[in-house]
């Protein structure tokens, strides 16, 4: 057991180190210079000032040092929990920006993934036994999963948001409000949350439903089901076994999805101008904000690693085969 987790943890640390290094490297390989474009946007009237300011900012962000030094500095401040200051949104610390965005992304993605997982699985399992559902809901599911996401999101924003006017098509809460724990504010928050949520929910729903339906059909036609049926076991029992077996891959799927949850839903947040992590990442790329990009990617890396670790643990608990394997290895 200890060896199993020891080895896992070693691999995780190694992955973390490599991923973070790549995160640090990639933005620096992009063409252009973030300080120059920051100054270009400020459209200064005097070029001598521009030169002095360039040096000043370069020094302030430590970009005047040799690359190896920058890399070392990066690890030193990272280990102290300091992600630096955003260039795009100067002088806000990257940590503040990310912390401000993460709840919005989580609030959007967690429910959409979890609810679509439950509903999708339920539909899928049901569809496997009902001709009628199989012929109506399932084709819809295929269409939904095959729809280009951007298109679906725009369609929703346009139809329910702009044409019907039922929901606001942009923003995270009403422009005339201040965040506060009042019903007006929460209502506004919900209103703005609904469309992006719905778009994510619909797309994920189809995938889960199809997966579950196929698994159940496969399980119901497998040898053990036939055997159980031949023994005269009640249909409910057969189905429960089938369902349990069909759940395993779906659980893995869910865990993987949850791992990427912190990455935010880039497209959703852009289409609905929702102020989550995805929006931040886009801005960081466009403005070549090294520090914000590193910070956001770091978050994703950590998220994925944690999720993977949890899968490892859950498998030990859920899947007897892994347990057996582990004990075999421990001997």
């Amino acid at each position: 057991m200890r060896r199993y987790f020891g080895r896992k943890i070693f691999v995780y640390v190694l992955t973390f180190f490599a991923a973070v290094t790549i995160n640090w490297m990639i933005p620096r390989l992009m063409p252009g210079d973030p300080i120059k474009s920051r100054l270009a946007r400020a459209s200064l009237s005097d070029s001598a000032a521009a030169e002095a300011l360039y040096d000043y900012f370069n020094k302030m962000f430590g970009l005047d040092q040799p690359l190896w030094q920058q890399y070392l500095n990066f690890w030193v401040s990272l280990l102290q929990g300091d992600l630096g200051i955003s260039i795009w949104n100067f002088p806000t610390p990257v940590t503040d920006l990310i912390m401000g965005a993460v709840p919005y992304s989580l609030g959007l993605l967690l429910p959409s993934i979890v609810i679509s997982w439950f509903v999708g699985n339920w539909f899928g399992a049901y569809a496997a036994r009902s001709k009628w559902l199989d012929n109506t809901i399932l084709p819809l599911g295929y269409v939904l999963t095959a729809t280009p996401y951007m298109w679906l999101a725009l369609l929703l924003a346009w139809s329910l948001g702009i044409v019907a006017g039922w929901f606001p098509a942009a923003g995270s809460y009403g422009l005339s409000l201040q965040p506060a724990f009042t019903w007006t504010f929460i209502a506004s928050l919900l209103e703005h949350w609904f469309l992006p949520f719905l778009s994510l929910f619909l797309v994920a729903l189809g995938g889960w439903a199809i997966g579950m339906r196929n698994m159940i059909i496969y399980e119901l036609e497998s040898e053990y089901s036939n055997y159980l049926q031949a023994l005269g076991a009640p249909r409910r029992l057969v189905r429960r076994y089938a369902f349990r077996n069909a759940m395993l891959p779906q659980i893995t799927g869910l865990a993987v999805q949850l791992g990427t949850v912190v990455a935010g839903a880039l497209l959703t947040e852009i289409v609905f101008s929702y102020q989550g992590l995805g929006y931040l990442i886009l801005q960081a790329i466009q403005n070549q904000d090294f520090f914000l990009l590193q910070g956001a990617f770091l978050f994703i890396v950590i998220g994925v690693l944690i999720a993977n670790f949890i899968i490892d643990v859950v498998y030990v608990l859920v899947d007897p085969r892994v347990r057996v394997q582990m004990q075999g290895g421990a001997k």
Partner: protein
Amino acid sequence: MRNRYRFLIPLALVSLLATSCAGDTEGDGGAAGDYPRAETLYTGGTQWGPPSTWNPLDTGGHATGTVGLVYETLFLYEPQSREYIPWLAESGEWVDDTTYELKLRQGVTWSDGEDFTADDVVFTVEVGKYEASTYHNLWEWLESAEAVDDHTVRFTFSQANYAQWANWLYSNAIVPEHLWSERSEEEILTGANEDPVGTGAYLYETHDQDRQVWKKNEDWWAIEALGHEVAPTYIVDVVNTSNEAALSQVLQGNIDMNNNFLPGIAQLVQGGYQVQTYYPEEPYMIPANTAWLVPNTTKAPMDDPEFRKALSASIDMDEIVNNVYGGLVTEADPTGLLPVWEEYIDTGVVEEYATPRDPKVAKDLLKEAGYEDTDDDGFVETPDGDPIDLSLIVPSGWTDWMEAARVISESAAEVGIKVTADFPEFNALVDQRNSGEFDLVINNERQISNTPWTYYDYMFRLPIQEQQGTTNFGRYENEEIWELVGELDSIPVEDTEKIREVAGKIQRIHLEELPIIPLWYNGLWSQTNTSVWTNWPSSETDNNYLPSTWRGYFQLGGILMLTELEPAPEEE
């Protein structure tokens, strides 16, 4: 299966709570408030990222309204009437050739209750002594600034650059000495200044990722001193998301005034929606800056004036104005000067030296200068026989400019010049532009101002640096013209006759050499909705102030626009 549903409700609730709590930390405390629609002005189009700094001395990243609504300048300059309007200063005059005396307004207070005095002005000017200050160059020709008494400041210059000084007086905001003098250099230059204390018409209310909210300052000095009262109690400035979002928000009346380029706005103005622009018909917008085609004059064949003229002559401006912009812009004057500087344009010089836009002229110019198609590929070669293949860069995603670049490339091809339009990312473009590694680029980095000097400085500034950050991207070296630009700077701003004379000399050289090619006047993009606020600036009414929240535009009369707004009559 039944128990599975029980998961859903708490999960959904928890996630919602998470989002609402997050929102809670964003705001700056304050009571739960919403802003009554009838008293709130919604603006958009200036802020491209979340508001993050309220430092008026920072390089231009400050939240929309920081300068203008909160911090104020000594003068305003109203370009439509060409008037300097005394603001924090009551008057200012040159007492001799190199001494300028400023009388400050009495009874002005900072929003924390302290008096505004000469010390504040001296302190602000002296911030320029820091090398990384945006107006550090002021101290190359300013010797000292001293407070004579509480309301008089005397400036002594080693060299009087009248035009630049007049420009400084209305572009730079004054900060309170009593709060800022304790700050470090770094804090003064780049600190976020989260709790801005100014003299202006508005106070900081709150902000979030996608908005900035200002609240009316009931104790604003101008209410009593000048009888000006700003109409909206709240101003909510919305961060830009996309043109599409902005357009629908203006149409629905969720944003009262939007200041970015919305293609197709002309149809909406004509279509009887409640959408207005400054002019009710073409060109709809006030010309705000000139878009230039900048050739890199250090590279062949762009180092040849005849070639540059031929290139300029080939451009089909009608196509750009009518088809790319749908009539929202106008072709620039051959000198490139904005209509507000009309009186400084020497029409005689223009008539004699300007190259007409005509493909025939372009072809003739090319032939005379020895550019011929020797290898029969349809494109001319240099007199030395080298092939010409130029690339014209504009930022990727700037769709109107991308279209215009395509038109330029096509019309150049018609006379035999090979120009390929190329669309690098903005950052990469800045890199190439500043270091001089481009052939042709479109640029418009100077705005309306009190003097054409700002344009000539942009076009001809010397010496050429390794990195050209803000001026003379084409690296055109001509000592003679740069001296004339200096001369222009040292003429008192009232002496229009003399300015015109020197400007005429500059225009002659410019048109003869054409180191930078004027294309069109970008509009002061502004679309307003009349459902909540009326009496917007318009050529049809008495409110002629510039309808803009762009940086630097509140001082150009934008703040006065706010005093002219009127609430729309109650729902019909």
